């Protein structure tokens, strides 16, 4: 039986505790031990960004982080964006601006956009495009994703409590 480590962290605001081998990647812990299948796997070379989550206030590719490295961390996944039955402005904007088609890149896009808008609440199109350059999409051509992030930025600026 391989050696395991006990790791405790917060997932979408709730404390969780898992037993993992050192080599277990955060994305597999989230998906298979903690039943959060929002983060997706699209590659094994850390290029596609479909696994992006928010960890300690930073966008990270959860396929390139060991769960053992997350002791005490605050992890936010797409499942945590909706609060009290109300969609986050980004989720609503992706829907209204048709910023998704197959939906596979969407959780990673949303989580990266979430942090991007914290970094820069009023990003230009160029800043959005380079700010989302770690997330690949094959369906949308990015144009409506950019529109969605811009729409969410406007909405959040108008009503900061929605952030």
């Amino acid at each position, binding site marked *: 039986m*391989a*050696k395991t*480590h006990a790791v405790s962290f917060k997932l979408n605001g709730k404390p969780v505790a898992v037993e993992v*081998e*050192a*080599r277990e*990647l955060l994305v597999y812990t989230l998906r298979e031990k903690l039943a959060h299948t929002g983060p997706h796997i699209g590659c*094994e*070379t*850390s*290029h596609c*960004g479909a696994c*992006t989550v928010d960890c300690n206030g*930073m*966008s*990270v*590719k959860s*396929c*390139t*982080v*060991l769960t*053992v*490295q997350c*002791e005490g961390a605050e992890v936010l996944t797409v499942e945590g964006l909706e609060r009290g039955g109300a969609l986050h402005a980004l989720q609503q904007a992706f829907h209204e601006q048709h910023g998704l088609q197959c939906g596979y890149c969407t959780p990673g896009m949303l989580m*990266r956009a979430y942090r*991007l808008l914290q970094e820069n609440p009023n990003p230009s199109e160029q800043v959005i495009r*380079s*700010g*989302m*350059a*770690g997330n690949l999409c094959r369906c949308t051509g990015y144009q409506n994703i950019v529109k969605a992030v811009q729409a969410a930025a406007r909405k959040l600026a108008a009503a900061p409590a929605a952030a």
Partner: protein
Amino acid sequence: MIPPSFEYYAPRSIGEALSLLTKLGGESKLLAGGHSLLPMMKLRFAQPTHLIDLNRIPDLRGIRDEGAELVIGAMTTEAELIGSSVIRNKVPLLAEGASSIADPQVRYRGTIGGDISHGDPGNDQPALMLALDASFVLTGPKGQRTVKADGYFLGLYETQLAADEILTEIRVPIPAAGSGWSYQKLKRKTGDFATAATAVLLQMKGGKVARVAIALTNAGSTALRARAAEAALTGKPLDEANLSEAARLAMSICNPTPDQRGDVAYKTAMCGEMTRRALQAAAARAKG
């Protein structure tokens, strides 16, 4: 997809990390940002028995302004470099170079120390360090030594860092006021390693180049300092003839590895082109 098993350690101090390194020896690897090492482990190209995680050591973080130099903890992330107002104001070349590395998520984890230590000629920090004439503080069981960036990079995945040492700090001389700077990176797409890239730091005086440092990324088995090109430019104006000569001299020391980014001819020509553009951009920023 799945890395093989290994033992994991998360020391809380440099001393603890060094003890582990000494004790566990050659089967161990240091884990910094993890975005070079973990992908290699997932593909089973690297299979260390032990992983020593440096992320929990506070002494390896932080940026200090010591007047003539900035002292940067080796575990400072690329994102922290870009976000640091002291770096943006005093060593903007470093912020520009860091911005060209990979993508936002990778930059939140990737560290300046890791990028330097990996010894990959495709990494961007080595050339930036050469252009800035930086030094590296290496800490081992017997104490610290400071080694200049120039001469630190020995070959593919090979640096002066001994097996029982950790790169703990990077010391960057603060460029003189009015310096010009630029990092020009040609890549197939954003986030890719450089097809060719050049870092330039220069000072102009009376329309002529007073001092210039030119360093090349991915043009050989290590980052390269283009000293002949520098010498040819010093004291000269940056006109077409001198730019071309500098580019030619930079190209003359290139020995790039052909791959899907380009063959030797293309990569060499692009080294010349990036050198030219970096010099022009740096001069445009310079005051003097």
